[in-house]
């Protein structure tokens, strides 16, 4: 029994240590996602291709200055998952004199210029952080500001680019928690986009670098939600109910849980 407790305690201690290390290394804002169902809204284009969805959402969030420094900031568009997000630590932005609140705006815009290489995958997003008077704020050195953009469904090999000072600049890009989410720790704000270079992934298309939203070869589903009268949810609920009922019956007629780890 003592042997079992020691094994369990050791495993839990190692697990906790690994969770802390992996959690600290994870991109800021990544949810505690160990599992779950991946259900993405179809990508919404500013200029939708044939069969594509339109009307991408924007975001505008205001947070009060706390203790003389900028607060924790999260702002994201309303799609699921959001097509564009900004996540910032407290104190990430330098405050102009007299600033009382921090206003974050994210909106899809027409591409300001063609990308130098590859093709745009999805929309270009203008991301601004300003005070209540509209004065843009700059990111403080050493502070983490993460920009996350979602590419159209199926695009998994994108790179984030920022357009500022009349030029597109490639950014160090990491995975944002799902294969089609791309994140970067930004040092400046501006216009951001996902660019696919080299061999195009399924959703990126292979068109020229015209700087326009690129169509996916296979149109995204018309709706991510089950429509009224759709029988699929009932099939799902029936199957789950049958599995749960079988498990309950088995549990009722089975034996109690053993206390030995090997059991």
């Amino acid at each position: 029994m003592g042997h079992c407790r020691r094994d369990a305690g050791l495993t839990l201690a190692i697990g906790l240590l690994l969770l802390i290390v992996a959690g600290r290394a994870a991109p800021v804002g990544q949810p505690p996602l160990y599992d779950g169902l991946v259900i993405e809204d179809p990508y919404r284009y500013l200029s939708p291709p044939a069969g594509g969805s339109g009307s991408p959402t924007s975001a505008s969030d205001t947070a009060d200055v706390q203790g003389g420094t900028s607060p924790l900031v999260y702002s994201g568009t309303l799609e699921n998952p959001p097509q564009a997000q900004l996540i910032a630590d407290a104190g990430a932005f330098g405050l102009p004199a007299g600033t009382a609140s921090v206003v974050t705006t994210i909106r899809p815009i027409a591409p300001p210029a063609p990308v130098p290489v590859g093709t745009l995958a999805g929309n270009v997003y203008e991301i601004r952080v300003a005070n209540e008077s509209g004065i843009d704020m700059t990111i403080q050195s050493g502070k983490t500001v993460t920009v996350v953009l979602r590419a159209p469904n199926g695009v998994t090999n994108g790179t984030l680019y920022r357009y500022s000072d009349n030029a597109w600049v490639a950014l160090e890009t990491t995975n944002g928690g799902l294969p089609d989410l791309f994140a970067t720790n930004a040092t400046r704000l501006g216009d951001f986009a996902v660019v696919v270079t080299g061999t195009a992934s399924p959703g990126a298309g292979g068109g020229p670098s015209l700087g326009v939203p690129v169509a996916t070869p296979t149109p995204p589903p018309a709706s991510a939600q089950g429509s009224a009268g759709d029988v699929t949810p009932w099939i799902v609920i029936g199957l789950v109910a049958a599995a749960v009922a079988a498990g309950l019956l088995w549990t009722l007629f089975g034996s109690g849980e053993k206390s030995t780890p090997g059991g």
Partner: protein
Amino acid sequence: MTAATSASAAAPPRWRAITHRAAWLLGGLAAATLLRGAANGASSANQALLAGTGFGIALLGIAVIAGWRPSRPSPRGLAIGMFGGAILVLLPLLLHPVALNAPGMRPAPFPEWATITLLVASAEEVLLRGALISAVGRSYGLPAAVVMSSIAFALMHVPLYGWAVVPLDLAAGVWLAGLRLASGGVAAPAVAHALADLATWWI
């Protein structure tokens, strides 16, 4: 015949049966994972819900065929599971407080999403922390069982979430295995896993 092959030929039938059982569990898990990834496709809600349901039922079936049988969860196991789930949810929030400001994934409708999330989380625990740890632990020892089940847990999420989640899922796998060892059953890791998954609706 070499000494090694002689030893292998003389291996007890029970040892070989348990090894075959572990291979069946891992092979079945890999096949179900790949099928789920393919079925998830463009990720419409209905596709994902059906793929998740099929995946959960397949894992339960694979575990039952391998000899796993359900048992009544003990109150102690449920309590350990609640504690383990709280750690899984709170730790990332403590490490990255900004996550509190972010909205959850919210892939509506909630009742169906929650039901199938519970099914998938429980099925994964039954197969990995239940059947696999039991099978591998008997033949190769608990450390090997914990490592193998945790690696399998991390790799099975790659088709849906990409390689970036491997470190976090590997760590979560070891933690969930610890809950299994501490409680003696799969109820604790299943409760913890379900809590962590359901929390993604809100955070």
